[in-house]
């Protein structure tokens, strides 16, 4: 048995929230107590969020043993049995569950394996080698050709070919140009960019420097959400370290190329993910989009040529340069090359971060990687692409995940949020949720987006409240199509997608709400009520004690009873009943 040399603890946001810092310090003191020569390392997110906190015990022959759900109480055992005596604690090890088997990790190749705050760790995994090669032997034109050849498309949602975009900016004359990394990850249900920035920030920085070299930009900005304090902290550290090592600043690695990066913290506006709104925000203004053309490549930040790429797009660049465009294009499909990172969440067993080759079916992602649905519930749909995307029903889940196929369903690829919905999810309620989002986030510039989203939300709320009328659905479709056509930017153009896809695939649920006045998933409160089954009730009064409005009392006989006129339908009685005596009607 090979000697244990390192212990790694995952300390990305999700790990920390699950208690990873305490696990780390417990390991540290336990190892010190036994005076063991083992190196402790803080690593980023490996993607198995469902097993956090995660600990890797690494041996001299580079075997990695992964422990999941580690609590401080487990640490002593792992140290004495595994580190000290070389016997892995089998019942605490994560069983092989297919999570990694079907993944291809390009963007995430280092996430969870390196300490993101140590530059040498990134360099130890071929970090900055792509940059060194580019600066010493490749011309900017050749870099752009290589990226074009790779077939890489923008991972932020729209899917515009990255090489072509760079070409536009490169062709603009003048020394003053800007390269912006869009890290304003605003889609609810998406955390790809956060995990990349927290787990491997240097990769994004290297991608930015190469992009800046290709288009000839001396200035760079990273526009990152204020809600991601850990990502901001690690980026700041990484920028400083890269500067000290000569990868940023004047005459990078002795070449004639100079480049600097500044961080701009977003202030909470979803619309700033749109390029022209993002530019306005960096300039200190309200984040309202403007008409294009001129495109940012011609007139962007302060009127100068500007190229904006998403975090994941830039994180692909160093790999493509190191391995070549052909190797990259080998993954994926004809029109969608490479891989895509998805944030898998919702009613799924293995919620976490995954990277799959383009073209994999939704079913394969949900069942083979995601481990199927929680509590074996019935798979109803996936919500892909956030508020701009749509719901794809389970019966179409054989569709391959590529730009073209997803668009054909009426949804969009989007930035990578993939929320799994089950039989207990009400599709009308989910649609109302997204419209509530877009209505609040609409900047108000275009009438159709500003008022149209509000009217759609009102209609959906009415339907959920049991006050829908038969013509509501047709009105929704008509309004949705108008908002799509008459809005200036991506927010308004795609805001109707959740409405259009759910009406298309789940019309029966709309009809149930409007005509039968019932919510098949038992979600919409106005359309449900709770009842106690007298024959199942053991009169334990747990529900009565739990009820926040005293709606439950002793009935006639040996059971409790709910007064429907007082009940607020919070469902707490339903959750606490140990005998399943409370039913939702």
């Amino acid at each position, binding site marked *: 048995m090979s000697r244990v040399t390192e212990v790694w603890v995952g300390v990305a*946001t999700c790990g920390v929230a699950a208690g990873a810092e305490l696990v780390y310090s417990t390991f540290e003191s336990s190892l010190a107590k036994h005076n063991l020569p083992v190196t402790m390392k803080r690593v980023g997110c490996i993607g198995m969020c469902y097993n956090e906190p995660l600990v890797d015990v690494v041996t001299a022959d580079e075997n990695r043993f992964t422990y999941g759900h580690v609590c401080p109480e487990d640490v002593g055992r792992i140290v004495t049995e595994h580190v000290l005596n070389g016997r892995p604690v089998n019942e605490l090890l994560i069983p092989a569950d297919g999570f990694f088997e079907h993944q291809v990790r390009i963007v995430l190749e280092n996430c969870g394996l390196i300490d993101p705050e140590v530059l040498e760790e990134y360099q130890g995994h071929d970090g900055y080698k792509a940059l060194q090669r580019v600066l010493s032997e490749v011309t900017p034109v050749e870099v752009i050709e290589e990226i074009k050849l790779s077939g890489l498309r923008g991972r932020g949602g729209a899917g515009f070919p990255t090489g072509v975009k760079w070409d536009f900016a490169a062709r603009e004359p003048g020394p003053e140009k800007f390269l912006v990394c869009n890290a304003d990850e605003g889609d609810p249900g998406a955390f790809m960019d956060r995990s990349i920035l927290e787990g491997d920030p240097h990769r994004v920085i290297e991608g930015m420097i190469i992009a800046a070299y290709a288009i000839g930009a001396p200035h760079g900005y990273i526009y990152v959400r204020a809600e991601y304090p850990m990502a901001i902290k690690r980026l700041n550290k990484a920028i400083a370290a890269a500067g000290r090592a000569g990868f940023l600043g004047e005459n990078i690695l002795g070449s004639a190329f100079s480049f600097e990066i500044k961080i701009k913290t977003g202030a909470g506006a979803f619309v700033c993910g749109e390029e022209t709104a993002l530019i306005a925000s960096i300039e200190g*203004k*309200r984040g309202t989009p403007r008409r294009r053309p001129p495109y940012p490549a011609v007139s962007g930040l302060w009127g100068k040529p500007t190229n904006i790429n998403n975090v994941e797009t830039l994180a692909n660049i160093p790999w493509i340069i190191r391995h070549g465009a052909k190797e990259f294009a080998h993954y994926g499909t004809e029109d969608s090359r490479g891989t895509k990172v998805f944030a898998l969440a*919702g009613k799924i067993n293995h919620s976490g971060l995954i990277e799959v080759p383009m073209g994999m079916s939704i079913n394969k992602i949900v069942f083979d990687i995601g481990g199927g649905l929680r509590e074996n519930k019935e798979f109803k749909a996936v919500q892909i692409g956030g508020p701009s995307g749509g719901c794809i029903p389970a019966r179409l889940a054989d569709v391959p995940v590529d730009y073209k196929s997803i668009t054909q369903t009426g949804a969009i690829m989007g930035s990578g949020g993939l929320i799994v919905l089950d039989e207990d999810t009400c599709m009308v309620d989910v649609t109302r949720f997204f419209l509530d989002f877009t209505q609040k986030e609409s900047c108000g510039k275009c009438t159709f987006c500003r008022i149209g989203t509000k009217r759609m939300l009102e209609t959906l709320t009415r339907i959920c409240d049991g006050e829908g009328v038969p013509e509501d659905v047709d009105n929704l479709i008509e309004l949705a199509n108008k908002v799509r056509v008459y809005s200036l930017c991506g927010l308004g153009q795609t805001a109707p997608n959740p409405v259009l896809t759910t009406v298309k695939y789940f019309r029966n649920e709309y009809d149930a709400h409007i005509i039968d006045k019932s919510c098949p998933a038992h979600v919409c409160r106005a359309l449900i009520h709770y009842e106690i089954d007298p024959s199942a009730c053991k009169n334990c009064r747990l529900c009565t004690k739990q009820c926040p409005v005293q709606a439950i009392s002793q009935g006639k006989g040996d059971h409790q009873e709910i007064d429907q006129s007082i009940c607020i339908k919070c469902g707490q009685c339903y959750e606490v009943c140990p005998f399943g005596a409370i039913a939702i009607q």
Partner: protein
Amino acid sequence: MPHSNSSITGMSNEVDELLHLFAPFPASVIPLLQEIQAHYGYISEANLTRVATYAHTPESTVYSVATFYSQFRLTRPGRYSIRICQGTACHVLGANSICEHLEEQLGVKVDETTGDGLFTLESVRCLGCCSLAPAMMIGDKIYGRLTRGKVDTIIGAYRNREEE
């Protein structure tokens, strides 16, 4: 009690120091507002005026920026801000009932501050830790897989800390 002159001067010196972290031009408006909010917890009318003067930007423009972005607060918040996540994953896993429970326990609605000035309840669009849904953030700390009981324990711990 009215402020003494010295405390007003002291305050403006402190603000001046914050202002001088950034160059005096319109593009600094957002970082200036962020810096002031990070320091005082909100942006007072007086400080909004100071930012406008310093950044050579009309006061109306600074006000329009401060009200456009959801991050900025124009009223004094409680000591701890509780940000309940309303992202998609949290929504389908019951964030609404967690939010209602918080409202009930704290006796305030979203965007309000408790009478003792301890908590401000806010709702946010996705904290980006969907695998921990439903989740909330207090200060910089994230709490996941929330249940009503877990919420009570967490809130109780903050209250106890305050009493000590």
